[in-house]
């Protein structure tokens, strides 16, 4: 052990930085993988309880080993690539989906500055926006490459949907940027610090933006009530109809990691990240994980509660309700910031 620490001290600062970064990436990557498999289990169990069923409860105590069994099953399944498919694009799509999903989490802070974040980018919030807009490619590619009408329709629907709701998503962040005076996510978290504890958080101060974010984020990650790209009753399984085996698992993984990301981002931007809800309690990364867990539960709860939108309703709602509300709220926030209203001062 002492040999290792001697070796560490002998490294140049640049090399130390490099290894710390590698370690952080490795840890967070593996935690995300674990969280993904746990979420598949948690979602099935929770949905089952909401619908008066039992859900998977046979593999291990309470069925917690179910994700492992699923993983093994998917590993040994036959890989089918349709004959008319464009091989290259078909194979690339799941990889693009997973890469885009895993990239966004890099800028989310789960603790104070320093160790608790992979990259504290100056333009963190823009980076998030950029990566989330890349996620569309995977779905369009997957939908097109399979050479199947259902996947094609699913892919096109999904692209249109993500386009429309990305706009509202981005607009819901503008107020926060104005209040924090920075694109840096760490600055946005610390801007929510104040004497009132959780009343200082942006989910209170920027309440309309928070609602817009929740709705747009749900649509952005294709979850019920906005899961039209994979509406079983109309499109078989949408863009991933033709996928099987591990490629299917990769697409599923991308969806879950996207959900985990929007929950983590929502926690940082609107729920005060790692700040404590009461002024008396100390701030700690623990708070981040509590709020993050609640948001994840919220997404599952939503799926158990709401029916799916119709496609025209979805488009109407996105463009004629969400975008105008978000835009109006930006004007209101800008006015309040300029007037120097308490709580809206920078």
């Amino acid at each position: 052990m002492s040999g290792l620490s001697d070796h560490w001290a002998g490294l140049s600062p640049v090399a130390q930085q490099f290894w710390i970064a590698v370690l952080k990436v490795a840890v967070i990557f593996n935690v995300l993988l674990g969280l993904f498999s746990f979420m598949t289990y948690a979602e099935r169990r929770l949905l089952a309880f909401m619908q008066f069923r039992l859900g998977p409860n046979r593999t291990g105590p309470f069925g917690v080993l179910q994700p492992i069994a699923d993983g093994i099953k998917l590993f040994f399944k036959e890989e089918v690539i349709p004959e008319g498919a464009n091989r290259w694009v078909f194979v690339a799509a799941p990889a693009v989906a997973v890469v885009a999903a895993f990239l966004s989490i890099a800028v989310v802070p789960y603790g104070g500055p320093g160790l608790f974040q992979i990259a504290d980018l100056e333009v963190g919030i823009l980076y998030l926006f950029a990566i989330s807009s890349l996620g569309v490619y995977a779905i369009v590619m997957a939908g097109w490459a399979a050479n199947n009408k259902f996947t094609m329709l699913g892919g096109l629907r999904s692209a249109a949907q993500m386009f429309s709701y990305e706009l509202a998503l981005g607009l819901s962040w503008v107020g926060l940027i104005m209040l924090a005076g920075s694109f840096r996510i760490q600055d946005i978290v610390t801007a929510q610090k104040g004497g009132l504890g959780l009343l200082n958080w942006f989910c209170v101060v920027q309440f309309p933006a928070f609602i817009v974010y929740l709705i747009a984020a749900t649509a952005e990650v294709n979850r019920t009530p906005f899961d039209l790209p994979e509406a079983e009753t109309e499109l078989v399984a949408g863009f991933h109809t033709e996928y099987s085996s591990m490629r299917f698992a990769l697409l599923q993984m991308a969806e879950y990691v996207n959900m985990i990301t929007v929950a983590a981002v929502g926690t940082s931007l609107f729920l005060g990240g790692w700040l404590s809800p009461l002024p008396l309690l100390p701030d700690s990364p623990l708070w981040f994980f509590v709020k993050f867990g609640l948001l994840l539960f919220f997404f599952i709860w939503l799926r158990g509660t709401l029916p799916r939108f119709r496609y025209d309703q979805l488009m109407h709602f996105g463009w004629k309700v969400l975008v105008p509300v978000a835009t109006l709220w930006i004007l209101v926030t800008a006015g309040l910031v300029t007037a120097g209203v308490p709580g809206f001062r920078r």
Partner: protein
Amino acid sequence: MELFEAILFYVFAGLSLLSAVVMVAQRNPLYSAFALLVTICSLSAIFGLLGSPFIAALQIVVYAGAIMVLFLFVLMLLRVGREEPEPGRQRVLKTVAIGLGALLLAQLGAVIAGIRPQVARGFDASTRSMARVLFSPQYVYVFEATSILIVGALVGAVVLARKEP
């Protein structure tokens, strides 16, 4: 650190050039679109290395995230296939291409011959300083005029796409 940055720079510079060549040489428009996407992402990485994360992010948001998705969307919706060269026009096109290429090469050569190496002065490319320049009296009117132009284009698109009542 400098060596590290230099390596990254050459990797992304090479990638952007290579994908740009692929984009032009490719007969399948869909693959061209993907190649252009790689070019855009490499350019964004280069902007990042030059210390301007704002431009780097905008490059992805605007070009990769919005414009290229639309391109791809249309290509896939219309099922555009491989482009086959037309035999008759080929000779004319080739002559014109060679002529223009030679002109471009000559210009490039002239520029490279005229370069006198000079160390660039320290330049602040952060978001804050960029915003200061963009919204300074020098540029703010141009900025506003551009936004009016974009709104005009939007209104035009809606009017054209609207069904007759």
